């Protein structure tokens, strides 16, 4: 029972990280209708920035996180301006390939700048933990912070998209860009803001991911990126609560599959569950069913 609880908490913690990454995917997809394959690599950049800020310059972890968020936000805006904006009218496949190009670029630039030797990410929470049931169940502060961060981000984003002018503009753009433009919404700026928010979330996810799994290499972001993308589709891409549910479920499934079935097959089981879900609900758990008109 205690081991079960332990796995459950680990699963929720990992799932929260996936959910934060998945939010970035889902928001960008909802508005720009593109699969941003470079998202996983922005995570990696965020983790490196925080790593150098904390280990090399001795900054406080919170300052390191803020710095990572700032740099990733900037990076997201620059990528969008240089690589994606010129392709607004192009086919989605062309944008996809460009995103892959950006992903290659970030990975190789990171390899040149920081080499491919793994960096040991410092434990930002000093290894503090809460012990329950006579110390049989340990919950690290890192786990609690991760889960709390995920919940806070979710609430803030839901309020942001629901209440603010910018959030409403985002929803309008995701529904119909042409009509939104006619209503006086600056579509280009809205898309830029979405990229900025997505990249800031990627930075947070990168820092949280690396404090849980400390080995940092230039390809750190790609597998979590793919998993989070899977989580976004799982929950219904374009939906914010969907990203949360998809991410957390995916994390739990991955940890349980690894613990109770086979560590080597945990990835395969995650993807198998995704396939089954999509066959039953072709647009994900919370995705909108689009009716086809002739």
């Amino acid at each position, binding site marked *: 029972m205690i081991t079960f609880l332990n796995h459950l908490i680990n699963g929720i913690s990992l799932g929260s990280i996936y959910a934060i990454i998945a939010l970035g995917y889902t928001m960008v997809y909802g508005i720009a209708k593109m699969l941003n394959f470079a998202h996983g690599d922005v995570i990696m950049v965020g983790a490196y920035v925080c790593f150098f800020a904390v280990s090399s310059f001795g900054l406080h972890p919170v300052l390191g996180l803020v710095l990572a968020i700032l740099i990733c936000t900037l990076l997201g805006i620059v990528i969008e301006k240089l690589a994606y904006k010129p392709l607004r009218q192009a086919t989605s496949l062309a944008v*996809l390939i460009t995103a*892959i190009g950006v992903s290659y*670029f970030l990975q190789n630039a990171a390899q040149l700048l920081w080499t491919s030797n793994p960096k040991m990410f410092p434990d930002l929470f000093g290894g503090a933990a809460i012990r329950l049931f006579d110390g049989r169940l340990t919950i690290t502060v890192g786990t609690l912070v991760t889960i709390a961060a995920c919940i806070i981000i979710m609430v803030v984003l839901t309020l942001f998209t629901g209440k603010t002018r910018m959030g409403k503009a985002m929803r309008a753009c995701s529904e119909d860009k042409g009509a939104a433009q006619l209503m006086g919404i600056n579509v280009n700026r809205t898309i830029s803001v979405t990229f900025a928010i997505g990249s800031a979330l990627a930075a947070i996810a990168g820092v949280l991911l690396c404090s849980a799994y400390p080995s940092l290499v230039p390809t750190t972001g790609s597998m979590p990126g793919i998993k989070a993308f899977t989580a976004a589709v799982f929950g219904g891409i374009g939906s914010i609560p969907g990203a949360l549910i998809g991410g957390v479920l995916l994390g739990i499934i991955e940890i349980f599959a690894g613990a109770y079935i086979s560590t*080597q097959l945990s990835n395969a089981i995650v993807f198998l569950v*995704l396939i089954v879900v999509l*066959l039953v609900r072709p*647009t994900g758990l919370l995705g909108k069913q689009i009716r086809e008109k002739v």
Partner: protein
Amino acid sequence: MKKMFSNKKTLTNYITYAGVILLFVILQSMSAAGGLSSALKGQLVPVCAYVVMALSLNLTVGVLGELSLGHAGFMSVGAFAGAVAAAALKDVIPAGGLRLLVAMIVGALFAAIAGVIVGVPVLRLRGDYLAIVTLAFGEIIKSIVTNLYVGMDANGLHASFLNPTLHMEGGKIIINGPMGVSGIAKISSFLAGFLLIMVTLVIIFNLVNSRSGRAIMALRDNRIAAESVGINVTKYKLMAFVISAALAGAAGTLFAMGQNTVSASKFDFNTSILVLVFVVLGGLGRMWGSIIAAAALTVLPELLREFSEYRMLIYAIVLILVMLATNNPTFKNFFSKIFKRKGVKNHE
């Protein structure tokens, strides 16, 4: 003769065949005369394998119009099935060429079976959902092959999953889990690669120009209209998908039989993406484009070797710039204006 080429498409097809033959003859004679560096010589078989991969993926993406992000999975199935077949038949068929042919057929067959298993559920989905499920299947195939152990002794083939002990009496291990296949007798040759490209082209061009091919393209252009005139969606989609998977399997066998060792991690998501890049850069549905893009982009990192560590960075920048140049309206107008001016001058 004139009537034969009256169709512009037929002409393009013949030019593609001729171009491939010409390239083969040039490269083969250069290679025989010692005009190719050993690094480039070593690239000849992988280039052929990637060309076939790009052609087969172009059938799915360009002709059928469905985005697949897991094409390397079929290559993996073909590579390992072919490697097992080649190793098992070593004593039965001593001639390398014939053994390669049999191995390729086995590889293609297994990949086709995988294609049916993947295709039946996947082709029910649409657009990006279909793409993510092909990605998922690619990863599942990778996980399965990584944990597969196959060996052979006097009693025949033994296989086990997840468990490295094979209960063999002597014999030898062919697929060793995450380590993959090692000590491969290299039976792939540039000639075999060239022949596989030609066979692939014949299959694809004949399919595209047939009744089935027209049905497949009708589905791509307007599924609802095609369905309403009585085209069987599942049948034709599956047909294109399975042929594409089988060709990828043959390419996988060709690739594996030209390497010393292959492991499942070679055929991951990045390989699928790489092949997709070839297809998109070469042009959807344009087979000669796929051939050129696959060949050029496989050799490009080799040619950029003098930039050593910067080469992949340059590769990424080239990729982004090419996509911007070919898809941005401003760039496109700029280029078309230049060409138009030239055209006007020629008239004068």
